[in-house]
Structure formats: C-alpha cells, structure tokens
C-alpha cells in the first residue's frame, strides 16, 4: 500500500485534470454521448490521486496541509478541483471546467516551483500558522471563483448584447446567478485577506518570541504584496457593494473580479520568483532588521 501511495506523483493528477480539460474543450467541436461521463471520470480520478498524494505527504513526510508553500498551492488546487467536480455533476451543460481547470493546473504548476520545506513551528505558531494559511486559502479561492464568474458574466453579456443564440456546448449560467457570485466573493476575499494579513503579523510575533523562524520585516516582498493585495481587495469590495444598485453594476463587479485575479496571479508570481524571509528558519544575521511586529502600533 505504501509503495502504491508513494508512487503517486503530481503528474498523475495533473494529467487527469488535463484530460478533463481537453474533454471540456471538445464541447466546442463536437457532440458526444460519453464525454460527460469521461470528464467526470477523469476529474474524479485526478481528485482521488490528488487526495492520496496530499494524504501520503501528511502521513509519510509529516507535511500537514498548509505546512509549506508547496502544500498550500496543492491544497488550493484540490479545493478548486473538488469544486469543479461538484459543479460539473450539478450543472453538466455548463463548461465551467474551461475556466476552472486551467487555474487548477496553474496552481499545480506553481506548486512545483514553490518550496517544499515545511515551516518550522511549535504549538503556538502551528495554531496561528494554520489560521494564517487557511485564511489565505479562503481569499485566494474566493478570488478565483469570483473571477471565473466574472469572466462568464462578460461572455454571457457579450452574447446577449450581440443578440446571438447560445453556442452549442458553451451555454453560460444566467447573468443573475453569475452577478450574485461576483457580488459576494469580493467581500469574502477582502475580509479573509485582511484577517490573514493580521494573523500573519501575530504569527510573526510568536515566531520572533521563540526564535524559531526569521522575523519578516515590513519591507519583505511577501509583506508588501500582501498589503497591496489586501488594500486592493478592500477597495474592490467597497466598489462592488456600491455598484450593486447601479444598472451596470454586474459589469463593474465582473471586471473587478478579473482585476482581482490578475492581482492574485501577480502576487503568486512574486511569491514564487521573489526572495523573501517569509517562513524561513532563523539565522544569526536576520535579527537586526526592524520587524513588522515591532512596527505595529
């Protein structure tokens, strides 16, 4: 059993998701009676392998979910893949996978570039670390779902404006449904991101007190990008709330959701490619920089 579990690699589930995505794309080309079953089968197989992979990392390597950037990305991808499977079973005629699966594959790709080193922690920092990682997961997933709904809104609105019949195999949900998603997700994302940022400050303080990890300075790229993301998401949530009562509110919130996704993507790219002390073990040279926790009023 252990040999089987250890043999599951990222390629296994990424390939399954890729095949499911190819099946989704084929909706535009031809009709098929078995495609729906094939899509669900490949997505389910991928999710199963994905689950076993995370499980084996937790059991064998002691890498609980959210314990490293690598695991964080894979858990975010897992959540979106599970959402895709559920949405496809519930709404088989909506090609949600065309929008969701590329992001799932993107997150899996980001995971392969991200550090697999687990964050060091003791009991207190483990608690705050999970809160911190969990909140980041919530806002990231909210932003992705909001952006997908926003993109679908714009596509559907474009068709309705051009007064065209729906394209076969590419039937979007109604504007009303999509607008309700794009209106809610900015709120969830903004509050989760703000709380995640605050929990990061607390975590930084706990780590510094125990000397487990490097304290993260305010000038660290991770702190800067998260501050920018939180600021943007709060602004976006505010605009989305006021746009609700305007006739073109749906379009505004849809565009905001796409900008939020771009912000998230830039943030991830910055996190993957940039240098940071976020989550690094303590070194002797690292304690002279003014820290975020010291600057908290």
């Amino acid at each position, binding site marked *: 059993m252990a040999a089987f579990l250890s043999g599951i690699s990222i390629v296994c589930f990424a390939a399954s998701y890729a095949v499911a995505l190819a099946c989704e794309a084929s909706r535009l080309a031809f009709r098929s009676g078995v495609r729906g079953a094939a899509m669900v089968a490949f997505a389910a197989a991928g999710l199963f392998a994905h689950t076993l992979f995370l499980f084996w990392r937790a059991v064998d390597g002691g890498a609980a979910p959210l314990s490293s950037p690598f695991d964080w990305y894979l858990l975010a991808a897992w959540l979106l893949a599970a959402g895709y499977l559920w949405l496809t079973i519930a709404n088989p005629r909506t090609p949600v996978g065309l929008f969701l699966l590329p992001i799932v594959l993107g997150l899996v790709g980001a995971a392969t570039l991200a550090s697999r080193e687990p964050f060091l922690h003791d009991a207190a920092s483990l608690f705050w670390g999970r809160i911190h990682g969990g909140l980041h997961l919530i806002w990231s997933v909210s932003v992705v779902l909001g952006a997908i709904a926003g993109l679908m809104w714009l596509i559907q609105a474009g068709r309705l404006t051009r007064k065209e019949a729906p394209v076969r195999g590419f039937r979007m949900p109604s504007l009303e449904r999509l607008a309700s998603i794009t209106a809610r997700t900015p709120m969830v994302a903004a509050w989760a991101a703000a709380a995640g940022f605050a929990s990061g400050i607390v975590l930084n303080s706990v780590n510094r007190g125990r000397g487990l990890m490097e304290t993260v300075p305010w000038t660290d790229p991770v702190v800067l990008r998260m501050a920018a993301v939180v600021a943007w998401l709060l602004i976006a949530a505010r605009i989305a709330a006021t746009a609700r009562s305007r006739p*073109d509110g749906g379009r505004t919130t849809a565009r905001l959701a796409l900008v939020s996704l771009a912000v998230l993507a830039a943030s991830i790219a910055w996190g993957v490619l940039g240098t940071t002390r976020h989550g690094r073990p303590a070194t002797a040279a690292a304690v002279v920089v003014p820290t975020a926790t010291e600057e908290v009023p």
Partner: protein
Amino acid sequence: MTLALVGGTHRTVPLALRERLAFSAEQAAEALARFRDCFPGREGVLLSTCNRVEFYAAGENGIDAPPPEQLVRFLADCRGIDAAALGPLLAREHDDAVVRHLFGVAAGLDSMVLGEPQILAQVKQAWAIAQDSRTSGPLTAGLFQAALRTAKRVTSETALCRERVSIPSVAVADFASGVFERFDDKRVLLVGAGKMAAETLRYLREAGARDVVIVNRTVARADDLAARVDARPAAFDRLERELAAADLVVSTTGASDHVVPLDLFVRVEAKRQGRPLVVLDLAVPRDFDPRIGERPGVWLYCVDDLAAACEANRKSRQRELPRALAIVDEEARRFMGDMHHRTTAPVIEQLRAGWTETGEAELDRLFRRLPHLAEADRGEIRQAFDRYAAKMLHPPLASLRSESHSGPPHGLLDALKRLFNLQD
C-alpha cells in the same frame, strides 16, 4: 409481409382539403373500426395531425396489405370527400419506403418545423387508438415501436430537437433565461393583449413566472386575456408605474408609434434602482424606442433580433439532418431485416423439428441397445446430440439471417425446402 401507406401532408394537400380530411381521435377510432370490417385480417393505423393524414396498412401470412387505391377510396369515403379529387394529392408507399417514411415522421424529419417534438406524441396516440380499435397487430406494433425507438435515438444522439425555432420560445429560453436565473420572483409585464403575448407568456409560465400584469389600451381585452392566463389587468395610464416595477416586458401592441419612447423610459429608469430589465418587443412597428436597448442594464430584443436567432437555430437543425437520416436508415434496415427474417420462421421451425425428431428416434434406439447406461450418462449423450444438431443447423440459419438483411430470402428458403423436403 407487406406494408402500404397512403397519405397527404402540408406539402401536398392544400389546407382547405386537409381540414376536411383531418380525423379527430373519435373519428379515427370509427374509421379504424370500419377498416377492420372492410379489410379483415389486415392491420391499420391512422395518423392524423394538423399537417398530415396518413394511413398505414399491413398484411402478413399470405394476406397482403390493401392496395393503395382501395385505401384512398376508404379515406375519402370516411371523410365524405371525392376520391377522384383526393387521389392525385396523396402519396403512396410500399414496404421499406413505408418504414423509412414513418421513422422520419416520428423523428420530426418530415415536419413543417424540422425536428419539432410534438409529432412523437401524435404518433404514439395514433398507435394507441389503433390498439384500442384492435387494428394494430404484431406487424404494426413492431413498426411503431421501432419508429418510437428511432425518434428517441434521433433526439438523444443529435441536436436536432435541442435548438428552439419559434420566436416566443427563443425569446424566453435563449435570451430572458440568459439574464434571469429564475422567473418565480420576477414581475412580468405584458403590454398589449395579442396572440403573441399569450404565446410568450405560456413559455414564461413554463419557466416559472407567476406575477404577471397586462396593460392594454382596450381594457376589455386586457381583462379577457388576464382571466384566461391568470394575470392581473392594469389600465394603460399605469404603464409608467408598471414599467418601473417590471423585470421582464413582453410588448405586442399594434401601435403605429413607440409606446415607450426614450424620455419615458429615462423617467422610469430612475425608479428602478438599477434592476436589470429584459424587453421582448415583439410588435411591428416596434413599441420600444431602440435607443432604450443602449441603456445600461436593459436587454432589448425586437422581432428581427429573435428571428435571426431562430434562423441560426434552424440552420443548426439542418446541419444535424444527415446524422438523423443516417439513424433512420440504420433503424429501417434493422427493422426490415427482422421483418424478412420473420418470414423464415415456419421453415426454421420445421427444420428444427425434423432434426429433433430424428435425433430423438436415434437416441431411443441407442438407449434400448445400451440399457446399462446410467441416467447421468444418458443425459450427457442427449446433450451431445442437442449440441451437434444446433451446430449443424447454425450455418444455414446464419445464412438465412444474413440474407434477410437484403430482402426476403426466397431463394434460400426454396433451397432448404427442397433439400430437406419441407412442406409449405
């Protein structure tokens, strides 16, 4: 086995004559009872819709289906029409052409609107009436079952019936449903009380619409339609207020100028609190100023917009036609193969009986000469004989089945009868 069809459709019979030729369900039952008396031993099914009247007749076991001219006279007599006038307008088909025709009809391939689904229910009803009238036998039962199966295959394996092609259905399913997720919490406003408004409302009701208000210049017509469709009538001077409260407007007045000009709508817009509005302007000339469609949150569709979508859907259906015809062809060939194979049943039965009889006689002789054989041994020997007989019979029976796919296998049947001395 013979099949015959006599009938006329919207393509061949003028409406005035089609109206006289049409049968209600009761009249169809009476006609079939008369058919049973006139043509004993034959099977018959009468399909009568607003676009076609067709009589399917069948005969089996040496009894042929009635000749087409007799069927023409029968139909004409039933409806009191001059057979000489009717005859040239009716089509006549035989055997596999009948099968292909019925399969195509059931699948909606011969309908005025390609792929329309109502015909399937009408075919089912026609067969049910024939069953009740005891004019449907094994042949027509097999034929109509196969027709229903073909129609289901065409529906599930092609997109022929998926795309909507009527303006009200396209307006609701492809456009209004693209904006709204549900209609049970929406206010629907009908401006005008015309037939198109009622038709569109039917689709909106199916989609869940409950709250419907009808505004019409002639209050009596609004009241009348409101009573028929369970809606609330409102005076025409309340139009502005009702527009402010509405989520979806269906406008079908006969007014010669815009009923809702831009300035009126701008006044209404301020009271709508940003709610989206779908306007289905089905009137010609248009009731809504086209510039209203450029306002944010307004989705305005006129007849031309919807007609273009209908046309696109029609073309989409046309593209599915070759696949649908291929299914009809495949099912028709399978049905005819089965039917031809049915004609070989008596010969096969005799052949089997002959082999079994001979085998049994030989076994009896063998068991008498070997009385010491245990019951288990006898059973084994009996099974070996049965297997031997089945294997020996398999090649001629397989040849018969194979030959049946390309027509009645008369040559093989004659050969078998002569070789094995079988009786007719």
